[in-house]
């Protein structure tokens, strides 16, 4: 057996979590909305931490439709970026230390985004998961679903089309 010994689990986790953190922390608007990401292997779940500034209808009260749309769009872009950066993160071409220094990879740009509002967003945390339907060299299509208490009762869903960043993926390399 010539197979190389697998890396220690801590090394793998540290590399992936640090890269994800650098990617998410680098975007001010993601911090503004209070969005975090939970990672299981390469699968990401967006978490919208509820706070009162997200309210769009104070009488119901309900989460603002714009916040819901933004949460779905952020989850789509991070999931899409994560899937195309994954090989470079794993091979070490991109590392978290570079990203934390502000050498962020180019992110996909939104071309169009269509949101369906299925239920009012309740004043509590929300979750979202995106699926890359097609990842081309120039364009990508992403579907995304958001829910609150119950995974099967979506309160919003969306589909987005994105322009993929063109090489070089990183502006400056060591």
């Amino acid at each position, binding site marked *: 057996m010539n197979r190389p010994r697998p890396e220690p689990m801590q090394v793998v986790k540290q590399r992936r979590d640090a890269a994800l953190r650098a990617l998410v922390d*680098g*975007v*001010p*608007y993601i*911090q*503004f*909305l209070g969005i975090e990401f939970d990672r299981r292997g390469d699968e990401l779940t967006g978490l919208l931490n509820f706070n*009162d*500034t*997200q*309210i*769009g*209808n*104070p*009488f119901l009260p*309900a989460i*603002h*439709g*714009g*916040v819901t*749309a*933004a*949460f779905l*769009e*952020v989850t789509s872009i991070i999931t899409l970026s994560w899937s195309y950066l994954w090989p470079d993160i794993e091979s070490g071409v991109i590392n978290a230390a570079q990203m934390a220094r*502000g050498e*962020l990879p*180019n*992110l996909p*740009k*939104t*071309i*169009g*985004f*269509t*949101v*369906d*509002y299925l239920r*009012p967003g309740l004043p509590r945390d929300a979750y979202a998961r995106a699926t890359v339907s097609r990842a081309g060299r120039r364009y990508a299509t992403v579907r995304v679903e958001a829910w609150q208490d119950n995974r099967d009762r979506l309160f919003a869903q969306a589909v987005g089309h994105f322009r993929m960043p063109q090489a070089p993926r990183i*502006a400056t390399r060591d």
Partner: protein
Amino acid sequence: MLDKAKVARQFIEAIPHANALALKLTDISNGTAVIEMPYDTRLIGDPRTGVIHGGAVSSVMDTCCGAAVMCHPAAPGGTATIDLRIDYMRAATPGQTIVTTATCYHITRNVAFVRATAVDDDTENPVAMATGSFTLEKQF
């Protein structure tokens, strides 16, 4: 008519998220609304260029479309978004205020249809355009 615009204005100005984005309602009457969003570094989506995140543009668009529905003469009260599609034509120029104009161009007993445009200082070339449908609610 004047009262409907006044009620809609009071509603928009009471929205916590509209305040978080420092949105300013500059015009509202007969199914058309104009809302401004000043540039803010907290809303940056691309830290390399300082361009505002598309999500923040979605929020002004959605608020502006809702305001256009509420001030339409045939609207009974509040509204909620059914669907909203946004096309991004170009990046908004960093440092400039984004101005959105929404028009409720058709209304039935149950649904209002709206389109909106967002521009920055270059008013000839829109940053984004939106189309959406909205519910009509008796209450707010």
